[in-house]
């Protein structure tokens, strides 16, 4: 359902079925809608069997990386010698992405149920749900739902706690998130060791995104074959996915479609396309960290992990940012670079210096002081920011810059040639 809009007939509503339904937020309302049946079922199963069902379903991580969820769970030690932890990544901060927020706002028990099932599957006794500090409303709703679920005793021996972030995009990176729970600065850790070997408090840990876990109860209830059957294109991408659409569209919001759905259909049929009299210029399909698509690429793109890669970008978090012909791509790319410069944890030189330096160069271009060699300099810097750091924040800054220069070079050159009115950047 494209909350706040009515569901579109072409949507496949699994996760968003109860968005906007206030009663579904309560434990009683959730149980009335068949909630917690999947958890009861899972708790009777061997943990390995639960993992096997999720593996078979083809579910992949919805936070951005798209790693197969069941496979991730299977990396946890078979023999339990230490405490195991589950971390739930609700630090949704990727520009363009606002789907986990809606899941927590409307169906908090879907997340709690998925969390408890995952904790059982990886044999974790404690799960921490890390919610970004700015999400005050989802926090309150989750807190209430958790109290209700605890009072109803639905978790058995599993303990679920909420942990509030305090303003840091980087804490959405899995090892930074673990450091943040440990009461440290949110600096990403060098891998290996991977979290399944040594994660939170040095113990075996699995970390999953909110949307990923919310998909687990329906998978257990309706079966892996059903989920696997939800596929319009590549069999490696199964199920439904929530896409958050924002920017220049008539009806922004969250829309849930089957994997492989055409991006064109999402943007024009569901979101109503750009405002009247304007045309689509560019689109970032998977949150601000992925390469920008041109109009042609956008209109021929299929929304699954492979389909978006084929167009030169990534499905990422499913945060779709739309720019129409009124958008100044140079200015918007500068804004994105500035975002990464602000959010860099500053551990790695390439990122700390690169994000700030690229931002300054783009500000210089916008102010009419750019030099002809600036574009090559930006590309050179971006090259040095890619694949060379502890985490991918630096790469994420480079992605819109490189794709932007490649695809909208004319707009950059117009500033350099003095053909475009300089912009005040503050």
């Amino acid at each position, binding site marked *: 359902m494209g909350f706040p809009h009515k569901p579109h007939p072409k949507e496949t509503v699994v996760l968003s079925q109860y968005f906007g339904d206030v009663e579904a937020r309560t434990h009683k309302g959730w149980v009335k809608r068949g909630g917690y049946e999947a958890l009861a079922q899972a708790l009777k199963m061997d943990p390995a069997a639960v993992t096997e069902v999720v593996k078979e379903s083809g579910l992949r991580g919805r936070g951005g990386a798209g790693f197969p969820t069941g496979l991730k769970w299977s990396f946890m030690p078979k023999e339990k010698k230490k405490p195991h932890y589950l971390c739930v990544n609700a630090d949704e901060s990727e520009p363009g992405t606002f789907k986990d*927020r809606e899941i927590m706002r409307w169906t908090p028990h879907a997340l709690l149920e998925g969390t408890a099932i995952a904790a059982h599957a990886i044999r974790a006794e404690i799960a921490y749900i890390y919610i970004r500090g*700015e999400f005050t409303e989802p926090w309150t709703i989750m807190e209430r739902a958790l109290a209700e679920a605890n009072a109803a005793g639905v978790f058995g021996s599993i303990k679920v706690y909420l942990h509030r972030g305090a303003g*840091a995009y980087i804490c959405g990176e899995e090892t930074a998130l673990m450091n*943040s729970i440990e009461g440290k600065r949110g600096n990403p850790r060098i891998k290996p060791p991977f979290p399944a070997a040594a994660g939170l*408090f040095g113990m075996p840990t699995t970390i999953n995104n909110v949307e990923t876990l919310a998909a687990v109860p329906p998978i257990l209830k309706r079966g892996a074959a059903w989920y696997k059957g939800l596929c319009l294109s590549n069999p490696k991408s199964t199920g439904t996915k929530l896409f958050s659409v924002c920017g220049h569209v008539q009806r*922004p919001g969250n829309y849930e479609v089957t994997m492989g759905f055409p991006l064109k259909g999402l943007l024009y049929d569901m979101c109503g396309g750009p405002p009247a009299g304007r045309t689509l210029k560019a689109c970032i399909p998977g949150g601000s960290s992925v390469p920008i698509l041109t109009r042609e690429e956008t209109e021929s793109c299929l929304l699954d992990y492979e389909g978006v890669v084929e167009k030169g970008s990534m499905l990422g978090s499913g945060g779709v940012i739309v720019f129409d012909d009124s958008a100044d791509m140079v200015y*918007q790319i500068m804004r994105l670079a500035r975002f990464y410069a602000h959010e860099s944890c500053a551990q790695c030189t390439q990122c700390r210096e690169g994000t700030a330096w690229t931002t300054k160069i783009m500000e210089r271009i916008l102010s009419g002081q750019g030099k002809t060699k600036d574009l090559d300099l930006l590309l050179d810097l971006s090259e040095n920011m890619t694949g060379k750091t502890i985490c991918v924040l630096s790469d994420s800054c480079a992605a819109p810059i490189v794709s932007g220069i490649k695809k909208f070079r004319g707009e950059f050159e117009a500033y350099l040639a003095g053909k475009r009115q300089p912009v005040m950047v503050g």
Partner: protein
Amino acid sequence: MTASHTGSYEPVFVGAVMEELQSVFQRYPNKQAALLPTLWIAQREHGWISDRIMAEVAEVLGLTPAYVKGVVTFYTMYHQHPVGKNFVQVCTTSPCNICGAEGVVKAFLEHTGAGDAGATSPDGKWTIVEVECLGACGFATPVLINDDFLENVTPEKVPDIVKKYR
């Protein structure tokens, strides 16, 4: 409770607040992990995180003041200075920017008398800041006033909002 620069300081973590902190400790295997929640409590009680409060937090958690400061300065939501009664965070990242977020910031600055972004209005009531992505891009422009999350804010709506919080 306020900390005075002239010497007297009333500790935050006493009585009911200390009891609350004890229940926070139970969620984690060590006290250090309680640092973020402890700082949230400190900010709720005191309004901002002063050096003196950092020292008290360090003491109750068995950490050093320098360590606590290192963490406080990493995160954007802990105020290291006093802020206005209404702390207004306006998202201005790209998706909100193309939907007019800069106009929203301008309207807040004008109608509250806060002057510049980051500064506090002379009556102590308003601090307006531009922030990066608030995670509600489809509801541009989102604005966080203290703990109230407002959606679809436009410059035209700002005067009424300001009236409500004033």
